[in-house]
């Protein structure tokens, strides 16, 4: 299983999205995003904003990073702490 996390405003758009997906060959963050397009078009649009970063197991990665079973994939909008 792959754990999915959506932070900040992305969490509002991700309401109803399952918190985990099955691992599969060739899975990347881009593929996960594509898989959300049909059922969650507004979330897909938000995730396609250039400022959105992704992390895999708490490390910032690119959209083509392979995802392996047991990973934690998080979608991060621009941060606003401090």
């Amino acid at each position, binding site marked *: 299983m792959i754990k999915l*996390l959506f*932070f*900040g*405003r992305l*969490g*509002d758009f991700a309401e109803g999205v399952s918190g985990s997906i099955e691992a599969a060959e060739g899975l990347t963050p881009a593929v996960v995003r594509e898989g959300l397009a049909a059922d969650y078009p507004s979330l897909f649009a938000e995730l396609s904003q250039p*400022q959105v970063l992704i*992390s895999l197991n*708490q490390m910032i990665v690119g959209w083509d990073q392979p995802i392996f079973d047991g990973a*934690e994939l*998080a979608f*991060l*909008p*621009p*941060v*606003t*702490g*401090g």
Partner: protein
Amino acid sequence: MNSTIRIQADDFDLAAEYELLRQLDSAVGAVVTFTGLVRDLEKNASINSLTLQHYPSMTESLLQEIVDQAQQLWHLIGVTVIHRVGELLPSDQIVFVGVASQHRADAFEAAQFVMDYLKTKATFWKKVDQNGEQHWVESKDSDQTAKERWHKDD
């Protein structure tokens, strides 16, 4: 170098944190502290409260990376970073950065560096409540500009 990083819902005591930095080492000749507070205005409208979300397993390691970078750039004896999460009210303390060094320039610059990087890199997100309506705070270009003046590669 001594570094302390805490993410907590509870408030912090500025004097106590200063005292810990002051007493780290007798070589400490300068302590610079910064405290960030909840403003009562967001986009020129008053706020009722602010809620801070973060990514628990990632935020602390990102803050540690920022502190480690600062340590490589300046001569530091101690750095403390405290960031609060959860619901906060106007005038509440949000963030504390304290830096102890031998000389003031290191402490001043490192404190500013840590804050500039924290604002643009650390995984915190603010949501404000304005008259019962909640919305996420947008990131500011000015924060990005502030970070870029350090001319560091990410």
